[in-house]
């Protein structure tokens, strides 16, 4: 896994820094009981005020009695949880009890608040049980980590981790694009000149290999769907964007579909929770394919020319497209126009990456700048100038940014956030132009596709060390995969729910009645609440003559208007009355001596 054992590392200049301190043990500290008691109090903050009171009481009891013979718990109350950890599991703001709320509402709010707080605490507590820890590369004094070569790292770490640095020399079929499967087990590489291969990259087991005898623009490993054969460990379906059409193959390389509705596709993104494959084509079309039912969900003509820069926001499933005029546009399948268009670069946008929390977007352009945006506020945070410019960008699960500048891959640390980009954390030189960059999920590995083949590079601290087995489990069994598939398909999020804020659904729709009514009229084309016209009933014995009907109509017509007019007239008379009184007062007050000559 991602962890690199520190014992092996101490012999070389490569060292791994431990971030987490060891948890406190009660037997370690016997003298400093006071300190240990004080610390939890600080950390507990607001949540543990009641417990603090109880500890104070106990202390005072002790003082009164002088000596207490009973054994005391050195850590009374619940174990403290650091505020930072609690913050991580905070969902939304706390609900305020509105003024003048009824007793029942108050109670309901209090109960739900207490429940959510409890859930938050339990989740934060669980962090302690996580088995793995993330590490980082740390150089000796006055040594840059970016000078450490991959070979050195591979030598220093254990054999399993060392084997994660390897090269595939495939110079024949041109520059390669690549994609890792969601669990990080399988690797898909596609050469420009038609070579497509699917590899279990950890065991170096070749799943399938073929030449499609056509240009390959992009490859995408779809979710694992429908087992084609039983004995395979993981069954994958993958999509290949070829010269004209989009093809879908199964893990053995059998062509399953040729989707002729999707032509000239240049880039693809798979939205795993929606089972949507989003494709961007050379003709300027952004299309969505539902891979679970094989239906085209939406086809949007972007009118922005050739689309060859694409990224997805994993937080809200919005597609980001970069354009030759320097703008980045955001798209959802529910809208024919872009959600947002932002001007990011002076030249064309070359590459895009969005981080997994959906907070930051990193872009690079032909103006050789690298920019970081906050896409919640659509504001630039900082930018830096790269002499060669970055042709490919990729963000890891833990926020490492890798940029392909010419033939060199540079990895930056702490890019996301307010502090500006400093020197690279790691660097690696390759032969040939770089075409694809992708981090392997849950591994400290960066895959690089270039003109001479494929390189897997070790980047310590890149991957999330602890996976959630119910979501994505790299080690899942056949049965577990099957069960996951059923659950995932049942939970497929409908494409209508894609929007900028994925939490919108849980919020109260506070649109006023008038506003909703207006929208309804717009949508329907007529007013559903409008009163229908008065139709006089036909009466017998000659009373239904045209004149009589007209008369009756006139009686009823403008009834409401009459009420309004009556009201307004009343208001007007009152106002006039007031004005009159005021003017009278004024007259009396401003009487001058010359007023008697006035008529």
């Amino acid at each position, binding site marked *: 896994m991602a962890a690199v054992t520190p014992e092996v590392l101490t012999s070389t200049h490569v060292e791994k820094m431990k971030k987490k301190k060891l948890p406190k043990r009660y037997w370690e500290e016997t003298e400093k009981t006071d300190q240990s008691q004080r610390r939890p109090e600080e950390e507990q903050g607001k949540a543990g005020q009641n417990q603090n009171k109880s500890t104070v009481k106990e202390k005072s009891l002790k003082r009164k009695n002088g000596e207490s013979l009973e054994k005391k718990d050195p850590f009374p109350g619940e174990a403290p949880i650091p505020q930072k950890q609690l913050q*991580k*599991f905070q*969902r939304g703001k706390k609900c305020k009890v509105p003024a003048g709320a009824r007793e029942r509402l108050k109670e309901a709010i209090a109960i739900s608040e207490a429940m959510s707080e409890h859930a938050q605490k339990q*989740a934060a507590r*669980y*962090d302690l049980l*996580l*088995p793995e820890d993330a590490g980082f590369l740390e150089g000796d004094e006055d040594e840059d980590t970016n000078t450490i070569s991959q070979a050195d790292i591979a030598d220093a770490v254990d054999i399993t981790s060392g084997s994660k640095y390897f090269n595939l020399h495939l110079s024949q079929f041109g520059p390669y694009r690549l994609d890792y499967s969601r669990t990080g087990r399988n690797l898909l590489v596609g050469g420009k000149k038609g070579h497509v291969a699917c590899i279990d990259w950890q065991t170096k087991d070749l799943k399938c290999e073929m030449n499609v005898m056509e240009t390959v623009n992009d490859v995408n490993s779809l979710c694992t769907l429908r087992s084609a054969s039983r004995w395979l460990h993981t069954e994958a379906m993958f999509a290949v964007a070829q010269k004209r059409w989009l093809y879908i193959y199964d893990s053995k390389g059998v062509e399953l579909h040729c989707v002729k509705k999707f032509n000239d596709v240049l880039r693809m993104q798979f939205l795993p*929770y929606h089972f949507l494959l989003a494709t961007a084509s050379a003709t300027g079309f952004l299309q969505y394919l539902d891979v679970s039912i094989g239906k085209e969900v939406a086809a949007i003509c972007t009118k922005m020319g050739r689309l060859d820069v694409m990224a997805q926001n*994993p*937080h*809200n*499933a919005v597609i980001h497209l970069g354009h030759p005029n320097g703008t980045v546009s955001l798209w959802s399948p529910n809208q024919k126009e872009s959600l947002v268009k932002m001007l990011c670069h002076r030249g064309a946008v070359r590459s895009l990456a969005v981080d*997994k*929390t*959906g907070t930051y977007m990193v872009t690079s352009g032909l103006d050789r700048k690298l920019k970081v945006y906050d896409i919640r506020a659509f504001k630039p945070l900082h930018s830096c100038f790269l002499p060669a410019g970055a042709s490919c960008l990729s963000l890891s699960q833990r926020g490492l940014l890798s940029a392909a500048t010419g033939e060199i891959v540079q990895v930056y640390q702490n890019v996301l956030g307010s502090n500006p980009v400093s020197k690279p954390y790691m660097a690696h030189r390759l032969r040939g132009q770089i075409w694809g960059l992708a981090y392997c999920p849950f591994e400290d590995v960066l895959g690089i596709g270039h003109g001479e083949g494929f390189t897997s590079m070790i980047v310590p601290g890149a991957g*999330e060390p*602890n*996976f*959630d*087995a*119910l*979501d994505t*489990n790299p*080690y*899942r*069994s056949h*049965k*577990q995969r099957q069960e996951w598939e059923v659950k995932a398909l*049942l*939970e*497929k*999020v*409908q494409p209508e*729910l894609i929007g900028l804020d*994925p*939490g*919108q*659904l*849980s919020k109260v729709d506070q649109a006023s009645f008038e506003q909703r009514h207006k929208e309804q009229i717009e949508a329907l084309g007529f007013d559903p609440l409008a009163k229908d016209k008065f139709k006089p009933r036909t009466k017998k014995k000659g009373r239904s003559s045209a004149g009589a009907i007209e008369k009756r109509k006139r009686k009823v017509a403008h009834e409401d208007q009459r009420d309004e007019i009556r009201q307004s007239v009343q208001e007007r008379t009152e106002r006039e009355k007031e004005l009159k009184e005021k003017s009278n007062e004024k007259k009396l007050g401003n009487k001058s001596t010359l007023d008697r000559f006035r008529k």
Partner: protein
Amino acid sequence: QRRAIPFTLGVPRNYDPTLHPFEVPREYTRALNATKLERVFAKPFVASLDGHRDGISCITKHAKSLSTIISGACDGEVKVWNLPRQECLRTVQAHEGFVRGICSRFCGTSFFTVGDDKTIKQWNWEAPGYGVREEPINTILGKAVFTGIDHHQREGTFVTCGQTVDIWDEQRSSPIRSFSWGVDSFSCVRYNPVETELLASCASDRSVVLYDTRESAPLRKVIMQLRSNTLCWNPMEAYYFTCANEDYNLYTYDIRHLDVPVTVHMDHVSAVLDVDYSPTGREFVSASFDKTIRIFPKDKGHSREVYHTKRMQHVICVRWSADNKYVLSGSDEMNIRLWKANASEKLGLLSAREKAATHYNKKLIEKFQHHPQVRRIARHRHLPGDILKQKRELREMREAQRRKEQNVRKHSKPGSVPLLTEKEKHVVAVVE
């Protein structure tokens, strides 16, 4: 049986929210699925007990045993049923004419029946031995027809109603006390389950009368626009009772404020004939002449559930079982039907995982209950065509009435036609 996952393939969790995107949409999808599944699994009908040779007129639960019920039919026959085996244990020809009321003694050793033949009979719960004739323990001959009976919670007294409300001692053959308030006949009388000396009865002069057995005169009565057929006390909050009215509605009253009902429960499209509370006091079930039974939450104006079958005719009596899981209904076409109180509930033992899943689904539905899609699916109930038609008709009539009243108000002196709420409309007077 599922195989457990081997230890080596454990399921490590990481609850980090960033690893679980689309929390709300996924949860919403789950809630939607749960709502749909709830409707898919809603199969409330459990069994039909047939054997009576005339319409069922009354049903009573055994005071001690969950599995036993007694039913009385319009031909004077009384049957004792075993519910889990769905079979008749015993048949007694108790009366000539209708069996009007049955009640079980609190100790569960005997039960009383009243009928159109002006008699009160006490029967032993134990069936007589083979070859022995069915004989009542005790028979009392009354002066007039009895229409209802109820037994005291703890003592050996019971109450009957007919032309008067009579309180009887089990040992004596004449009533200890008789109440009457004006000349009328009564259709139903019930002891309060908590304040055991308190009685309520429905009279044919459109009133509901309250009595205290320790006093010589009735306490008070509330007169409504139409007659109430039966009433039932809330077993947990015994200051509330609900009466089933001829005007298609049910009214829940607080005995401390009889002038306005606490809630008006509207949904039936014909006269409501019987009502019974669940033992938790949260819900009650009502039987109607419109061939349906409905389940109402005690504080909601509309029903949460409606049960009907093609073959069920006018439902005359209904009871909620003491374990809060089943509803029994007796109808005109000689069948007693057993329904689940919660239509989509799975019967039988649940595994721990099943239990957790049902709880989770329930919570999800509750959380997203106000979303239009979820609400639409959760609310939808199939209704027979004629009931649907009557419902629409009724709505139109109400709308017309409202419009008429509005017009009258518009063209009369301001204040002379006051605005009345739905609750205030139906009470005519309260008499002390």
